């Protein structure tokens, strides 16, 4: 893509990739917002049943999990900052941290689900259905993010990224931060309000 086409309003290839990622994230906003609004509607319609369901949710455990996801987002942005400065070791170390923290988040969620099932929660409950569906879909996004992080890590180790070429890390970062933003909202809606 040459400069002339850029000045005519056509984005260069690497900007197109980023725009594509933002359009995808816009679609994800619609997807998660629909799920969350549905949950809020159920909650307003059946306040007593929700309070019974909420008794078994562990706010301290999920607060720690939230902190873990925020810390992983911080490490993602640090990995991008590192490769922008040509620091491949920084990229590797931060991505390893992201994978470790992301896996810990999923382990925390698995522990929470196990505890809830032992306490009698079910996928067929009025609130079990939306709770497990929405947190499950979010967890799946984290899992996909972990695989993506692994791919970025391996590509980084093979020297695919440099100070000049690091869009692969940036696109992964956008996805991971979005998953973090969704959790910020879910944490408030499910556990705190």
């Amino acid at each position, binding site marked *: 893509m040459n400069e002339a086409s850029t000045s005519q309003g056509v984005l260069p290839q690497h900007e197109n990739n980023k725009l594509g990622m933002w359009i995808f994230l816009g679609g994800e906003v619609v997807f998660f917002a629909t799920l969350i609004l549905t949950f809020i509607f159920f909650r307003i319609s059946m306040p007593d049943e929700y309070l019974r369901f909420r008794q078994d949710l562990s*706010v301290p455990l999920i607060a720690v999990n939230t*902190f873990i996801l925020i810390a992983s*987002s911080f490490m993602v942005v640090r990995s991008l900052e590192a490769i922008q400065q040509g620091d491949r070791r920084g990229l590797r170390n931060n991505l390893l941290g992201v994978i470790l923290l992301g896996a810990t988040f999923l382990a925390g969620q698995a522990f929470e689900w196990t505890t809830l099932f032992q306490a009698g929660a079910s996928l067929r409950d009025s609130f079990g259905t939306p709770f497990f569906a929405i947190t499950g879909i979010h967890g799946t996004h984290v899992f996909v993010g972990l695989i993506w992080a692994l791919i970025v890590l391996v590509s980084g180790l093979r020297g695919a990224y440099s100070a000049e070429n690091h869009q692969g890390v940036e696109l992964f970062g956008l996805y991971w931060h979005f998953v973090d933003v969704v959790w910020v909202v879910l*944490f408030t809606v499910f556990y705190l309000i």
Partner: protein
Amino acid sequence: MREQIAKTEQAAQTREKSRSPYLAVFVFLSVFTAIEVGVSYLPERVKIPLLVLLSFIKASLVILYFMHLRHDSRLYAMFFALGLVLIIPLLLIMTVVMPALISP
């Protein structure tokens, strides 16, 4: 001369690092999360607006700084915000149409 350039570049990088907002954003996000947990024990009419506000601030910090939307093209922000605009019809259906259908 070459040493001088290298030193200048190193100093610029150090300045860039010290200006980096990421650590400050991370600290804010962590502190706000702790505050949210504390606020969740307040009475409902107090906690709901506070928690919505704190959640909005946290999400905005991640989007503006970690996702760089503050400095990136507005085109990206537009497509991201379009998702939120598309939600408005659903919100209207849930808050206006469905309650009217459910109520006897």
